[in-house]
């Protein structure tokens, strides 16, 4: 059997690795962005000079050949049912021909879409001016290197996790950064008031000009339609900008899937075994949409990759996502979360502890005394301990008493005292 995977992001690559582990099938990964898999969340460290691009590749280049995973650096332009062999009419159901931009075609018995996501922009005036960019793909890394040359002022639009990374990168490159954030506090959509306040102040203290409750109205170019010159905010303010990073979220990359006749909505529609509307065609990672919606995280993409391999080779049952977890970093402040921390958590629905120097805080959210989520800022927390508590329905008393056993801070760090 020949399995063709479209996209060498973490979803596609994890699928390929597990398919190889579990089977002897022919595996081909076609991807247009980069010849080898790299870590997308590591992009910022390349832009800040912490790592080279090569350092972001989790596997040495010989790895693929040794494991008989064929890599093709090209874009898939079309997928069609195969007519070359099969029944009387020459049509073999569930077999496909994959066509690539450079003209090559490959026959496939199984196809996995792992096409990831792309920047979601909202058709602003001026969004295509030189100096305006996203921060999602490898090409954006290269664009950033060009755009920061000689630049002094930058505007980052969007107060999400990519937005704060973009701001950190531009700040590290010596630009004056203004950040436009729609919410009234940083990440307030996700964070309770206290945490949002901490992060908001922390970002401002780094020297970022943070504009809350502010949206982008339009981007304006310089004389004779040249490079971006300034942006106008929703309140009519004009902010000077030589670089604009639009970090207003991502949307699943589904053009190819749509053209190929797959059912799509926001993403490629799948059931809980990653099966799309066509036989032997699967979708995983950022591009896939379950009945309950999309899951667009590094961790979920990796889990999808492993599970789809088990579905294909072992006929595994439904994918069940474990207890939610995530992590991010806001300049200096690391954040780790397990389970659910409602943004409207308060003293009746959670226990909250904080320290100022250095900034550390911890929140344990509960429902009628049963813990539903734990997160920490500036405090590292053990995933296994936290999820075991949450899964077992531990009470707030138990968790509070044993909180130190969940702390994952380096040796000699001051203890947490909830």
């Amino acid at each position, binding site marked *: 059997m020949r399995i063709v995977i479209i996209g060498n992001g973490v979803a596609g690559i994890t699928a390929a690795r597990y398919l190889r582990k579990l089977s002897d099938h022919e595996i081909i990964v076609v991807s247009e962005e980069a010849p080898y898999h790299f870590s997308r969340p*590591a992009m910022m460290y390349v832009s*800040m*000079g*912490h790592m080279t691009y090569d350092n972001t590749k*989790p596997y040495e280049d010989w790895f693929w050949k040794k494991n008989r995973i064929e890599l093709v650096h090209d874009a898939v332009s079309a997928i069609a049912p195969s007519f070359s062999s099969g029944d009387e009419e020459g049509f073999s159901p569930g077999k496909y021909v994959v066509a690539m931009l450079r003209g090559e075609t490959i026959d496939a018995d199984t196809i996995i879409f792992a096409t990831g996501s792309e920047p979601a922009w909202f058709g602003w005036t001026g969004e295509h001016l030189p100096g305006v960019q996203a921060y999602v793909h490898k090409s954006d890394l290269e664009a950033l290197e060009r755009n920061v040359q000689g630049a002094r002022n930058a505007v980052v639009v969007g107060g999400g996790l990519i937005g704060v990374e973009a701001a950190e990168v531009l700040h590290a490159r010596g630009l004056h950064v203004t950040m436009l954030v729609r919410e009234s506090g940083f990440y307030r959509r996700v964070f309770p008031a206290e945490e949002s306040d901490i992060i908001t102040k922390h970002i401002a203290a780094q020297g970022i000009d943070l504009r809350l409750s502010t949206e982008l109205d339009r981007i304006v170019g310089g004389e004779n339609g040249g490079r971006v010159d300034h942006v106008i905010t929703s309140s009519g303010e004009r902010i000077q900008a030589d670089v604009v990073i639009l970090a207003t979220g991502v949307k699943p990359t589904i053009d190819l899937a749509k053209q190929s006749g797959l059912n799509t909505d926001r993403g490629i529609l799948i059931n809980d075994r990653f099966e799309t509307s066509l036989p032997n065609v699967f979708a995983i990672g950022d591009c896939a949409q379950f009945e309950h919606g999309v899951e667009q995280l590094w961790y979920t993409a990796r889990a999808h990759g492993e599970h789809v391999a088990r579905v294909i080779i072992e006929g595994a049952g439904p994918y069940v996502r474990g207890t939610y*977890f995530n992590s991010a970093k806001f300049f200096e402040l690391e954040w780790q979360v397990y389970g659910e921390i409602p943004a409207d958590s308060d003293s009746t629905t959670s226990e909250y502890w904080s320290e100022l120097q250095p900034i550390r805080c911890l929140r344990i959210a509960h429902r009628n005394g049963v813990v539903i989520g734990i997160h920490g800022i500036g405090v590292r927390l053990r*995933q296994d301990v936290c999820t075991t508590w949450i899964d077992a329905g531990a009470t707030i008393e138990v968790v509070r008493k044993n909180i130190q056993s969940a702390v994952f801070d*380096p040796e000699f760090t001051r203890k947490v005292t909830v």
Partner: protein
Amino acid sequence: MNYIELTVPDSMRNHGTMWSRWKSRGVPAYLLALLLTGFYVLVYWFPEPLAPLASLLDPLAQLLRGSAADRWFLYGTVYTIAVFVMGARMLLRYRTQRYHVYRTLTLMTVQLMMSYLIPALLARMGSKEFYFSYFWPLKPEYLFPSNISALVQSDNGLLMFMGFWTITMTVVATPVLTYFYGKRWYCSWVCGCGALAETAGDPFRQNSDKTLSAWKIERWMVHSVLASVVSVTGLIWWANVDPASPIAPYAQDANKVYGFLIGSVFSGVIGVGFYPLMGARVWCRFGCPMAAVLGLIQKYASRFRITTNGSQCISCGNCSTYCEMGIDVRAYAQRGEDIKRASCVGCGVCATVCPRGVLKLENH
């Protein structure tokens, strides 16, 4: 509430490292490597040009050792200054992380006391110039029969203590401490080579080779050195016990060859000279027989490991990039596996640079 930001920008610590020509094998790095290598060659084999430099240190040498400064005094002084100057840099750079503050201060203190002042004072007292922080097999001669019998059978209390110290540290303390804490108790807290690597070498840690082929070479080389030092020690003992045996005349020659190739060329000239090109732990990784012994204990009989926090790894590669021992930490972390590698010196930098809080040094 008023948030005062006293934390240094930790996340900026490595800003621009990959663009720095000093830190990323640019021309200045090669010149520095040449300078360091040249210095070692002079110290070991052509000391005359250093004489005027050494004589500048005469007053200090008179004060500490009660004799004129020779090249070894010059070398020791330069070494200790390097550990202190770059140690101060290290402390500033990692000042928010207590693990690094404590171990750097310890390394600096041990270097100053055990490797510089105490040996000098011992020499001044006319006693044996003894280094309390070095043991066999890093200092092979400490377990040679001539040394052991001279110390243990001496009626001088100090010398007896030295003999007792050497034997206990080598045979008892080393395995016991390594069982509880891993090899880091020595390599990142005590050792003089470690002291230089962790201070003067910190700017170059990213230049270690992380490839699988480098790991293969490392295992082959470091264990060969260990085998050599065991053989040399064995030969010397054999020659001592049975001076009439046919191998006896070669024992000293073997020791000399070892001392030249490993003690001087490898640990000194290459070990330090190549800091700017291959990272600070070239010797510790590829050559040090002490590291080999500690590594075997660490791998097979130690409670030490680096724990991976569940599935939180984003495969970014900061840990592998900044591991001075060239361990591909990410390869383990992204699979959710703990890291238990013989070469890990427990410097803790992988855990510090990880942006997702995935790694923790633990003695389980």
